[in-house]
């Protein structure tokens, strides 16, 4: 049996953070510099009382609105997020009720960052192909803005909040091909929120500033940009070639590359390193920033809408994320 992506929708919170607003707070940067280097013009951020599950609900409602596909057909809900409503219970269980899904479904959370959508569709494919589930609803949702220190201009510029809903079934618009995965926990501390979990239950109040004056605190999201960059440069080329090999095709067979949308800077580096033509490398971070596990489904949605994906296209998707955790697969439309 084969598994397919049946439908994708996404939702971004209403509030927008523009480059002008960032420059107002951090005058050492200019609007042009952010646009040229990072390539992001706006990012959407949640309000104080808005959570990832709220965004998830909106994305799912959009998925079912005007669709012939009934909510009652969903028999598995996977919620991929690192911004759960509570430590427990699983946000997926809360979402089952809020979304009005049947009480005979499986529902659980998956905790992964930027690699989350790739892993999510791999789990869904396994469930569909083994006959365990018929229609898997994968919701990726993230609100990193809640984890950022007020003075953290770098991460505030890059990350945006958002959610995407992907329906995986035994029929649909894109066949899910073979996967390659990778994990290296040695990189765990290079992108981390140290407090709030069981290891450090309460704030450590250990704020310091790095060489560039960026805040470093266990109580907020911390990213070692140089280490993350080197990890990306190291892993992505090998990952791409491994995925191609696993799917028994060459890079010339790929019609469109839709990778995790970190920012323009990383995108250009990857594209140049892999010698991919500009027109075959899709980008979609300008208006929403890096939405973590939702960047690939958002990009696929936009690529379908603007005609960048045509029927018969082979799309290569790879993602590298915190953990470290990475993965990739080929989608055939």
């Amino acid at each position, binding site marked *: 049996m084969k598994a397919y992506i049946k439908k994708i929708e996404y939702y971004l919170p209403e509030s927008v953070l523009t480059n002008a607003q960032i420059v107002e707070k951090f005058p*050492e940067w200019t609007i042009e*510099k952010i646009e*040229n*280097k*990072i390539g992001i013009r706006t990012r959407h951020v949640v309000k104080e009382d808005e959570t990832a599950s709220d965004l998830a609900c909106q994305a799912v409602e959009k998925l079912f609105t005007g669709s012939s596909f009934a909510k009652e057909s969903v028999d598995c809900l996977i919620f991929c997020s690192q911004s759960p409503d509570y430590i427990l219970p699983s946000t997926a269980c809360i979402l089952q009720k809020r979304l009005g899904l049947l009480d005979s479904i499986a529902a659980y959370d998956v905790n992964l960052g930027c690699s989350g959508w790739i892993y999510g569709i791999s789990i869904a494919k396994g469930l569909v192909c083994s006959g365990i589930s018929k229609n898997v609803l994968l919701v990726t949702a993230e609100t990193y803005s809640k984890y950022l220190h007020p003075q953290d201009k*770098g991460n505030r510029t890059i990350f945006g909040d958002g959610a995407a809903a992907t329906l995986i079934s035994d029929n649909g618009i894109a066949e899910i091909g073979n996967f390659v995965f990778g994990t290296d926990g040695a990189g765990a501390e290079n992108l981390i929120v140290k407090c709030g979990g069981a290891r450090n239950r309460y704030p450590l109040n250990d704020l310091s500033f790095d*060489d*560039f004056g*960026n805040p470093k605190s266990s109580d907020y999201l911390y990213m*070692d*940009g*140089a*280490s993350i*960059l*080197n990890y990306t*440069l*190291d892993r992505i080329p090998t990952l791409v070639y491994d995925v191609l090999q696993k799917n028994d095709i060459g890079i010339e067979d790929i019609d469109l590359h839709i990778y995790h949308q970190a920012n323009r*800077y990383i995108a250009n*580096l990857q594209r*140049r*390193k892999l010698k991919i033509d500009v027109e075959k490398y899709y980008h979609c971070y300008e208006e929403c920033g890096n939405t973590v596990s939702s960047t690939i489904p958002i990009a696929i949605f936009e690529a379908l809408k603007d005609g960048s994906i045509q029927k018969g296209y082979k799309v290569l998707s790879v993602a590298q994320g915190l953990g470290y955790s990475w993965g990739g697969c080929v989608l055939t439309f």
Partner: protein
Amino acid sequence: MELNDFVKKIAAEFDETPVEKFSASVKFKDLEEWGSLTALSIISMIDEEFDKKITGEDLRSCGTIEELYNLVLAK
């Protein structure tokens, strides 16, 4: 790559600082424009041009552009 060309490559990673300000003995981290973005640009430029990895720690250990050049060559 000769040292002179390396200095030009480093200068190109700074958008606002005039090229004339750059020489092998310049302490690049003392330049007003120096920041995390420039640091990442230099790491990726060295990856592209030399196919070598330098770390945040490597950058911290270098004072002048020439020191950075020698560090890259020694990798």
